[in-house]
């Protein structure tokens, strides 16, 4: 299936849509063939970003490095649970990283999150809208994100890339928490509208 990839395995494809397909193909190779070469490309691609996010959210360099190991080990173990028709590879790896952070950095059980993912994997009878959103390519989400007004994008990045609680975002930006929440709501609704238009 990946004979093309094997002779020429770049870390990133310059065309965003092709790049998303490339990541999915790598993930499937890991899931079905336990292919370490594909896995190493995913590791090189996401590992440094996961480390950067963990450091921004308060982890020391050593702990962030450990968390990358944790996250990528889980990606390897659970690769078969990734469903290419339900979302981008980055979305799935993001959730694995979020759960590892809850577990290790916040010392809270990630079990409720894992249970929801179990239900998601098991539920086949989803609404057409859910299917449409799930099948969207990650590049569309990325371009929707780039189109957000900077004040909305800022709170989204603080919430997701730095894992900051809403209360802390409010404090850092010297805003009422209600304003932080409404910016997040607006950003989220814009994303949904874009996805639904395309779906």
């Amino acid at each position, binding site marked *: 299936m990946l004979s093309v990839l094997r002779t020429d395995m770049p870390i990133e494809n310059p065309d965003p849509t092709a790049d998303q397909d490339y990541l999915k193909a790598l993930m499937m190779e890991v899931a079905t063939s336990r292919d*370490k070469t594909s896995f190493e490309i995913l*590791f*090189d691609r996401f*590992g*440094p970003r996961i*480390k*950067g*996010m963990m*450091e921004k959210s308060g982890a020391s360099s050593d702990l962030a*490095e450990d968390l*990358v*190991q944790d996250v990528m*080990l889980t990606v*390897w*173990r*659970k690769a078969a*649970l990734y469903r290419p028709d*339900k*979302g981008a590879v980055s*979305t799935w790896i*993001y*959730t694995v990283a*979020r759960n590892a*952070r809850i577990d290790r950095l916040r010392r*809270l*059980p990630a*079990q*409720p*999150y894992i*249970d*929801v993912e*179990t*239900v*998601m*994997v*098991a*539920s086949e009878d*989803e609404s057409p809208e*859910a299917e449409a*959103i*799930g099948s969207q390519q*990650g590049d569309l*989400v*990325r371009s*929707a*994100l780039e189109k957000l007004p900077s004040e909305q994008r800022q709170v*989204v990045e603080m*919430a*997701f*890339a730095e*894992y900051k609680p*809403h209360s802390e975002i409010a404090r850092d930006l010297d805003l009422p928490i209600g304003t932080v*929440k*409404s910016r*997040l*709501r607006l950003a*989220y*609704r814009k*994303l*949904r509208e874009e996805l639904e238009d395309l779906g």
Partner: protein
Amino acid sequence: MTVHHHLDDASIMRYASGDFDEAFAIVVASHIAMCDDCRAAVRAAEAMGGAVMEAADSSPLEADAFDRLSRMLDMEPEEPLLTPGPTAGKVPLPLSRLIGGDLDQVPWRTIVPGMQRHRIDIASSTSSLYMLKIAPGRKMPEHGHGGTEMTLILEGSYSDVFGQFAAGDIADLDEHVEHQPFVDSDIDCICLVATERPTRFKGMVSRILQPLIGI
């Protein structure tokens, strides 16, 4: 399941970024497990997290990072993945881990006639998590909240100014809200509740109980 009352979009974002404490995470996850729309909503918010991650600043890994991981992969036993299906019935998976799968087996404690409670002890949380079982026709005095409160209905129904809340519905209320729930089903209304600031909650309970026990 047809659900009429959903999570606020800000709560969807909060869940997707992993910001809830344990009590709220359990209530929110239990609702999401019961609600197709909120599962789709969470997936969209997580896609946003994935897109943010793709654009995030990198921090260089140690030179031997992949080799270290690679050695661990070689030691990994190849076991088939367990993918348990969702629990059937009225108790969603995240809650069934704590109370089992049968609402009749919950060790209820009567606090006043017509109102029973089961407190769920969680080690880490600054918020309280408990279940309530309230008899048909029971009306609570109007009350406000000391902080955010989330109530997930598991069985029966109640009504208040926001409408009727039945199994699967969640009331995602912030501290500015005042309401007066009234159990309008002909069976007991059973719900799962997370509240911030337990001390203020005590005040609320005593206000609820005051007219019922005649003090």
